[in-house]
């Protein structure tokens, strides 16, 4: 059980910074998810914690010990790989036992540990099989078992579910969550799937271009994204961004956007006070937009371009003065033909404002 602390961690390949000044504290027993697009440095960060990549700068500490110069085996960590990395020529039992045997653990202790792990993971009937005789989900559970038997200080997961089909992935996601509640070990999980990040993480770390963009609970990340990137990466369908102009209206403000204007909440007014007359980006989540076919005050006027029927809801793409706006949670039974004029409104408190140049949230 241990805390993991990354201080100014860098990874350089020649002139290219794969990981740039990452600072992060992962608390004891916490489940932290690193999420970001491919090439953002999340896997490299994980592999540096594991000791599979050298650290070019900064320090990584596990527990109270700085591990920069420790080989992987002395870091007391366990890892699940994307392709499971099972030992194909060994039985499931031997796969689970390998790490313990290398550490000279007595055979009866090994047996007891494996017994415990197979009960947790439901692998009892598969112990004598070879990995290639198992399904993807079963192989994944063996890989998890390899972590459980070790009682490692930290569990690392490198996109462990991305080789599974959608249904199994959703199932294993729940299993992982249950497992973490049961074994209570510090866990670092890397994924590019925002749903996994939101559902699994106690905290989520959003990375982009080798840097951390934001760290927070899933709700914080969703509700208060610090940058346009975070806002666009988290949430599905993605947040809409419109170019807007800030206008004063007596003591308050409003924002002029393609197709109409938005009222700004009191909170929003304080955020926008410094940008009177300036150009900003307005972010509005598809699920916060209400769509009406009758003229409404303080609404954006546009026309339906496309609809996507999902059964429980419809996604509607609206074009307002050339700007594309996605609207979700539209009643599935509503009939909206392309070209229908519609009015879009959003609760002022749900609007997010970003600087047009730095793309950071305005505060």
């Amino acid at each position, binding site marked *: 059980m241990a805390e993991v602390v990354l201080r100014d961690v860098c990874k350089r390949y020649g002139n290219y910074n794969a990981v740039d000044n990452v600072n992060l504290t992962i608390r004891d027993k916490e489940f932290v998810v690193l999420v970001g697009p491919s090439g953002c440095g999340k896997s490299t960060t994980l592999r540096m914690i*594991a*000791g*599979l990549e050298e650290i070019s700068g900064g320090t990584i500490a596990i527990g109270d010990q700085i591990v920069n110069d420790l*080989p*992987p*085996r002395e870091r007391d*960590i*366990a*890892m699940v*790989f994307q*392709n*499971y*990395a*099972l*030992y*194909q*020529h*060994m039985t499931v039992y031997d796969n689970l036992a*390998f*790490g313990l045997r*290398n*550490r000279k653990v007595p055979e009866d202790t090994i047996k007891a540990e494996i017994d415990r792990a197979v009960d947790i993971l439901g692998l009892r009937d598969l112990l004598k099989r*070879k990995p*290639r005789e198992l399904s993807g989900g079963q192989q994944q559970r063996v890989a998890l078992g*390899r972590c459980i038997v070790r009682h490692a200080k930290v569990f690392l997961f490198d996109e462990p579910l991305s080789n599974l089909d959608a249904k199994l992935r959703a199932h294993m996601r729940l299993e992982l969550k249950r497992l973490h509640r049961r074994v209570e070990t510090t866990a670092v999980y890397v994924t590019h799937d925002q749903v996994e990040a939101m559902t699994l993480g106690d905290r989520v770390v959003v990375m982009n271009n080798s840097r951390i963009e934001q760290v927070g609970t899933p709700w914080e990340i969703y509700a208060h994204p610090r940058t346009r990137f975070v806002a666009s990466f988290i949430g599905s369908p993605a947040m809409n961004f419109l170019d807007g102009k800030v206008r004063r209206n007596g003591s308050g403000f409003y924002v002029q956007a393609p197709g109409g204007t938005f009222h700004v909440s009191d909170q929003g007014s304080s955020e926008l006070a410094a940008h009177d007359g300036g150009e900003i980006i307005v972010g509005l989540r598809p699920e916060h937009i209400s769509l009406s076919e009758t003229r409404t005050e303080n609404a954006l006027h546009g026309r339906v371009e496309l609809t996507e029927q999902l059964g429980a809801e419809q996604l509607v793409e609206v074009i307002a003065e050339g700007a594309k706006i996605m609207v979700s949670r539209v009643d599935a039974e509503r009939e909206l033909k392309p070209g229908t004029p519609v009015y879009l409104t959003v609760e002022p408190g749900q609007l997010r404002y970003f600087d047009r140049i730095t793309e950071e949230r305005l505060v």
Partner: protein
Amino acid sequence: MATIAGDRQTASRGAIPATRRRSRLMGERLYFQIGLILPSVLVLLLFQVVPIFIGMDASFRRWSLYDPDKTWVGLEHYRYVLSDTNFLFTVLPNTFLLMVASVSLSLALGMAVALLLHRGFAAQRLVQTVVLLPLMIGPVISSTMMRWTFNDQFGVVNAFLGWLGLGQPAWLADRWYAFGVIVFTDVWLWTPWFALLLLAGLKSLPKEPFEAAALDAAGRWRVFTHITVPMLRPVIGVCVVIRAIDCFRTFDQVWLLTGGGPARSTEVFSIYVYMEAFQNLNFARGSAAAVIGTLIIMVAGLALYALINRFMDVSR
């Protein structure tokens, strides 16, 4: 070819009934295919298959230069070879000893070299080239070189031993020393071949199991025995089978180094056949020995193959 046939088919559609059209086109394609392989089949037949049958036929006759009738004698030559104590107690043991020693030593050394090259180091490219040099030198040249290297009066080995103040054995005049030199030469010649193939095998292995093993606290030796070797088994298996069969017919090294001597004590199978056929001019007896050798290596090869198949099944 397929596209030409396809074009024809569409062009002539309707003119000829479908079945006839198809069979004619198939026939055309077949002729083309036969035409392509015919030259190599002819060469193979004329220079490999026919001589093999002539040789087999010869082994049943009195096929010597002073017997133009080539009288049929049945299994007489086989009986001779199989009761020849030299063949049974020197030639065959020597052949298998050379096979086992050469294959196992060059496999072990080749593996070591491959692991070294796989790890990568500063002068790796240079070392890689140097290590592979023996592969580029003809066996005749390297064997001649080795004969001089181990020459008891002028060879570097004895010069070096003399400089160290050690004894200077007559390398090629003693049975076991001479056999040692043969094995040494063969290992020297074939280690690079093993190294090259095993290196290719190593490079094709996925890296994740090795990373998992590093996290699983496996030491270098455990990684080698429990991860690397099992994963390389298919490559090792194929290398060993090919090389073992090939080793059975070793000729040049032995011929040039010892000529089978001293006193036929280092004679191996190919030398025996050559001596019978072309030194004693007893073609029939040589042929019989060759056929026996073929049968032996067929059985040995199949056994090895089965063994390695089982070995690989375990890894699966």
